[in-house]
């Protein structure tokens, strides 16, 4: 078993190093194939571990070596494969394998093909460390590794200039990469503080030791630690107000977006909360947990509302991720950790499928993402259309697809906890989700053909790519059917993850589900009515709607990026400039310059001593000796 753990963890790393060997050379197909094989190997190992854990129920805990040993601080390099981490491992490696194979086709024409695979595998490796580590220090290392790799990948096309698009303010990949990195850095500080607080009070960073000591800690400590850790989770999982990087990160290549959204990055925040469930289920931190649930619900609604009017295909999918992350946090905050984790897994499958399908469209349309320039693509891209429809149905939450079961369980949880406002918001959001995901499907694949007049000649993606995507499609359909057995599986981990609906909710479950389905179907129907029809009923852009207050508010993302620009970026720039010209140039630089000038000057003046005449030197030496004697004499007299 131990070997399997190491294979699962280090196979992506070896794949990354292998690809890095060819980083500077031109495109070699086998680099992509070998990279995919290593990730696939990691998936097989993870799946075997999962199967083993499912049948025997024994948690594998390995300590590879002592890592940091200083004073009382003792951090081993250890990994744990329990029900939580094995779920993550399987999902991450499965999605990553598909994305790797997909990228072979997608990055076909890119000259940095090999470099791309190196980063992609390193990304997966970081995430594996993050989920498998048995202590907070390892988690943090993986956390930062994920941040660095996302920076490398979002800014992969760093040479692209800022381009002002109609639907989009000027954003370049390197700018988006920096934004993502800096926003995450802000949140990471919170996370570090949280880890420090826990270490300070428990003297350990191992999960089991820390969690065992939680009952003995004071309320203030618990609450601060919970808040600080959640700030870290907010950054990684792009919760309000640190959410703007997520949509801008769409500047990266599409396989990266798929990986970030489905497997290797944004889920880390949710994972952190689920991993720390003993902390968040303490009674003392109930307030924090409720805040998490409320924020999650708010973000779910907020992101869904922005997706309603977005024109950029990838950004719509990005908003839907944001919205679904909100659902996960809502469930985790309400104490239903296993439902959150289940939704994470189900979401990973259909979201990856959605992104990869979006990538196909983007590939076919020569990087054009504006939905208003598409339409009727289903005739030319049948396979992609089927995948996108499956993924959208799953996202919209219609039975029997994956999204329905997990999302419905979250909504039911909100009802069960008597937080009816959250429940209502989540139900409305479910309707909105159905509307925008089908708005996107109908605008791109149905309706009038708007792309041919604009000179686009789309073509379907390579066959092997479509075949590689099929496991995701299958999983997006069937995952939900295994909810019951998954529940039994994860219940073994302990009391804190267990969550049961009350009898009262149980009786109403069918009606609650029907309400959600009703909202979802009406969203889809409205989208169909508005966007899918052809002929004289076909959808037209309308000036009146687009100039409306709400449309503008949503299209500008509630002016939050604008606000950041005006009230944070610009003042910061001004202050920086002031400090540069006033403090740095006039004080710091001037001091350094003057020291140098003094040294130069004194050297220049005393150079005349160096006559080359030994006699003169001896004279100077005598003067020096006398001087020293005098000083010694004076100090002797004083002392």
């Amino acid at each position: 078993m131990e070997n399997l753990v190491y294979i699962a963890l280090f196979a992506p790393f070896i794949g990354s190093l292998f690809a890095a060997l060819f980083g500077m050379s031109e495109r070699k197909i086998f680099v992509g194939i070998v990279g995919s094989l290593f990730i696939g190997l990691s998936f097989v190992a993870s799946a075997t571990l999962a199967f083993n854990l499912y049948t025997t129920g024994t948690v594998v805990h390995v300590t590879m070596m002592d890592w940091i040993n200083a004073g009382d601080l003792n951090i081993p390099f250890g990994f744990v494969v329990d029900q939580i981490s094995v779920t993550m491992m399987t999902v991450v490696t499965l999605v990553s394998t598909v994305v790797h194979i997909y990228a072979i086709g997608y990055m076909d024409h890119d000259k940095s093909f090999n470099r791309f695979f190196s980063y992609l595998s390193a990304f997966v490796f970081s995430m594996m460390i993050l989920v498998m580590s048995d202590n907070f220090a390892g988690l943090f290392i993986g956390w930062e590794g994920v941040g660095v790799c996302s920076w490398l990948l979002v800014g992969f096309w760093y040479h692209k200039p800022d381009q002002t698009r109609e639907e989009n303010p000027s954003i370049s990949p390197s700018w988006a990469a920096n934004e993502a990195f800096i926003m995450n850095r802000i949140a990471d500080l919170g996370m570090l503080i949280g880890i420090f607080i826990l270490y300070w009070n428990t003297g350990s960073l191992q999960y089991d030791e820390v969690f065992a000591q939680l009952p003995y800690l004071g309320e203030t400590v618990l609450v601060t630690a919970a808040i600080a850790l959640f700030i870290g989770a907010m950054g990684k999982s792009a919760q309000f107000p640190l959410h703007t990087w997520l949509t801008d990160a769409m500047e990266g290549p599409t396989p990266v977006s798929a990986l970030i959204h489905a497997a290797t990055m944004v889920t880390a925040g949710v994972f952190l909360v689920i991993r720390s469930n003993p902390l968040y289920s303490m009674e003392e931190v109930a307030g924090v947990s409720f805040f998490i649930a409320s924020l999650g619900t708010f973000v779910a609604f907020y992101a869904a509302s922005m997706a309603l009017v977005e024109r950029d295909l990838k950004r719509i999918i990005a908003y839907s991720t944001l919205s679904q992350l909100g659902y996960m946090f809502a469930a985790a905050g309400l104490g239903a950790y296993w439902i959150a984790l289940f939704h994470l897994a189900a979401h990973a499958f259909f979201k990856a499928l959605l992104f990869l399908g979006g990538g196909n469209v983007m590939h076919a349309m020569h990087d054009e993402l504006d939905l208003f320039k598409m339409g009727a693509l289903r005739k030319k891209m049948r396979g992609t259309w089927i995948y996108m429809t499956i993924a959208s149905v799953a996202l919209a939450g219609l039975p029997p697809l994956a999204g329905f079961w997990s999302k419905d369980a979250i909504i039911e949880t909100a009802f069960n906890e008597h937080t009816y406002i959250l429940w209502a918001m989540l139900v409305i959001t479910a309707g909105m989700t159905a509307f925008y995901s089908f708005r996107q499907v109908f605008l791109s694949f149905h309706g009038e053909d708007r792309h041919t007049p604009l000179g686009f000649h789309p073509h379907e993606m390579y066959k092997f790519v479509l075949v590689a995507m099929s496991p995701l499609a299958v999983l997006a359909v069937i995952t939900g059917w295994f909810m019951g057995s998954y529940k039994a599986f994860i219940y073994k981990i302990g009391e804190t993850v267990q969550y049961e609906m009350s009898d009262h909710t149980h009786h109403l479950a069918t009606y609650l589900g029907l309400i959600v389905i009703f909202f979802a179907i009406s969203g889809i129907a409205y989208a169909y009515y508005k966007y899918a029809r052809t002929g004289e009923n076909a959808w037209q852009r309308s000036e009146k709607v687009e100039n409306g207050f709400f449309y503008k508010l949503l299209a500008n993302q509630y002016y939050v990026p604008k606000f950041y620009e005006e009230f944070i970026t610009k003042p910061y720039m001004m202050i920086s400039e002031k400090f540069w010209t006033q403090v740095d140039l006039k004080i710091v630089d001037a001091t350094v310059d003057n020291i140098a000038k003094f040294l130069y000057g004194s050297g220049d003046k005393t150079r005349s001593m160096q006559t080359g005449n030994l006699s003169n030197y001896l004279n100077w030496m005598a003067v020096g000796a006398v001087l020293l004697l005098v000083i010694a004499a004076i100090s002797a007299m004083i002392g």
Partner: protein
Amino acid sequence: MMIGLSHYLIVSAILFSIGLVGVLRRRNLLMLFFATEVMLNAVNIAFAAISHYYNDLTGQMFAFFIIAIAASEVAVGLGILIVLYKKYGSLDLDDLASMRG
């Protein structure tokens, strides 16, 4: 009049000063060597005298050391002087100023 420690020290000081003036004023390298020898021997006198005064043999031992080192120094120094003379044809310090900065 008894000849005491102070007389020796005065002689030593006078000799040292003569040597120092020689080092500072002379231009010929050979003369500089002589001057340093004078200074070293001035110190030797002082060592021997003080050693006798305190009844401690360490000072005299030190004087011996200095004599030995001075001898070897002269041996090496004279060798260098000969080479220098062969090369430049002069031992005048004013002519040997190739290290001017």
